[in-house]
């Protein structure tokens, strides 16, 4: 697979603060690649270096074969960018913004009216930017990022502060971008978003990338634990559970059991044990680790800002 973005050994400091250090990764043609990390981990700095908005102190970046620093205007013509916390002129109308953006690109642009339609903004085309809701503003920024029919789309925290409906609508849109063969590079601190949307994820912490893989592999690698929670009144149930292969811990409170262990077969083994011992089960559920568990495990649980 061709690499659309190649980042290698990038370091960027602000004064004495090291924002990112030794950051290296590749983004493949046609995938949704997510950069996840706590606030202040270096997500936006990394993304803005790739977009050509910041110049790294060290390291090399190549996007679509271009150097974002030297060929910034050529690059801007071929990519679409949505920035975190951007604004437009308060009193610019939706259609004027689309019209202005369309005039800024050399290459043939996408049909602005159609984009507004797809993004549910067509009824707002004469509204001022300041009178749009948060979700509408965000969708307008996505429309602007797509106006030049870009080959790579950069989305920085695209659903932060949006309600669940808008968030899901925007996820659908991003998948649509991938279906049209475009590459998407996004940052988020919503693990659910990364898990549902991204083909591959890089976890960044304190300016360094800790691991890169598809979400399932990351979970398998860092959180192999499986948990089964069940309720049974079978005799000596806990003793039976403790001897199941792979079980590490059994917690019992009244007739409720929490069985922790590792291995893909854990759940099957538990079911097998239940039927072998003819235990009557009144509740049974499994708790599987997700990307959020991986994230908390790798980046710690302390609150930061």
């Amino acid at each position: 697979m061709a690499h659309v973005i190649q980042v290698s050994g990038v370091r960027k400091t602000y004064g004495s603060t090291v924002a990112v250090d030794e950051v290296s990764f590749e983004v493949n043609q046609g995938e949704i690649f997510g950069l996840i990390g706590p606030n202040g981990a270096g997500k936006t700095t990394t993304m803005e270096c790739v977009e050509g908005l910041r110049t790294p102190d060290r390291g090399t970046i190549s996007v679509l074969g271009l150097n974002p620093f030297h060929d910034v205007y050529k690059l801007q013509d071929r990519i679409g960018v949505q920035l975190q916390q951007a604004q437009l002129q308060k009193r610019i109308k939706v259609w004027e913004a689309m019209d202005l953006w369309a005039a800024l690109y050399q290459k043939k642009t996408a049909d602005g009216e159609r984009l507004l339609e797809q993004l549910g903004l067509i009824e707002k085309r004469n509204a001022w930017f300041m009178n749009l809701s948060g979700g509408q503003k965000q969708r307008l920024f996505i429309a602007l990022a797509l106006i030049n029919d870009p080959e790579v789309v950069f989305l920085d925290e695209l659903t932060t502060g949006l309600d669940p409906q808008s968030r899901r609508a925007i996820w659908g849109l991003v998948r649509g971008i991938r279906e049209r063969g475009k590459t998407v590079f996004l940052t988020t601190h919503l693990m659910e978003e990364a898990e549902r949307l991204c083909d591959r994820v890089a976890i960044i912490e304190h300016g360094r990338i800790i691991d890169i893989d598809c979400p399932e592999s990351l979970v398998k690698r860092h959180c192999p634990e499986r948990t089964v929670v069940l309720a049974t009144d079978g005799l000596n149930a806990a003793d039976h559970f403790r001897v199941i292969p792979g079980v590490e811990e059994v917690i019992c409170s009244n007739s409720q059991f929490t069985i922790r262990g590792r291995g893909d077969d854990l759940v099957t083994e538990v079911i097998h044990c239940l039927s072998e011992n003819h235990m009557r089960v009144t509740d049974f559920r499994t708790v599987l680790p997700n990307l959020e568990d991986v994230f908390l495990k790798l980046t710690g649980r302390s609150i930061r800002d």
Partner: protein
Amino acid sequence: MMRGLWKLTWIEIKIFLREPLGAFGTIGFPVLVFLVWGRLASPKMVTTPVAATGFIRVGLPVLASLLIAVSSVLSLVTIISIYREGGILKRLRATPLRPQTILTAHVMVKLTLTVATLALLVIAGKRYYPVGVQVPFFAFAMALLITTWSILSIGFVIASIVPTARFAQPIGAIVLYPMIALSGLFVPLESLPPALHAVARVLPLTYAVSLLEGIWSGDAWSAHVGDVAALVVVFLICTALSTKVFRWE
């Protein structure tokens, strides 16, 4: 990139006119000053035309024009700092648009509005304020454009150093209004104390006033080459300075 420049300029003009207070401050205020002052003074003018040769005949139109230029600059400073604070400048930079194109569009907006306001002033003056002298309006408009263009570059320097949008207007006013007071418009330069005279000599508005007064009274351009040169020097220095200190975010 010309297409982007025209479109951005046109959209910025429309946006500016949609903001009632901003539009009034820039366009309405100089016209209002002109009309009110002119009205108060006009009966005197009619009875003793000789007295009208002083401040009312030349000074007031020049003051009003200078106010046009200064409010353009204040408005530029405010808009640029609001755009920076809101990330609008940054968003525009994340396109193939050249940074200098973004700033050029704003200069063009201000120059257009300056001409429009001057036209309004002339129309208002013709109706309500019998100046009754032949004034080379075209040359005067050119002189005002040169003045505005020159001090807009001061605006960019101010816009680079103001910390937040809240301070933009007051800091701009503190820098620019005292310059009007010392420009020789109200008090002849020669009668200023030596220290203030020396200060006035290095202030750009002094040259602007000399140029505007001269052209308004019918001087030839050749008599004001020095003034134009001084304004060009101000533009060059401030532009060089702001390319060093201008912040986009």
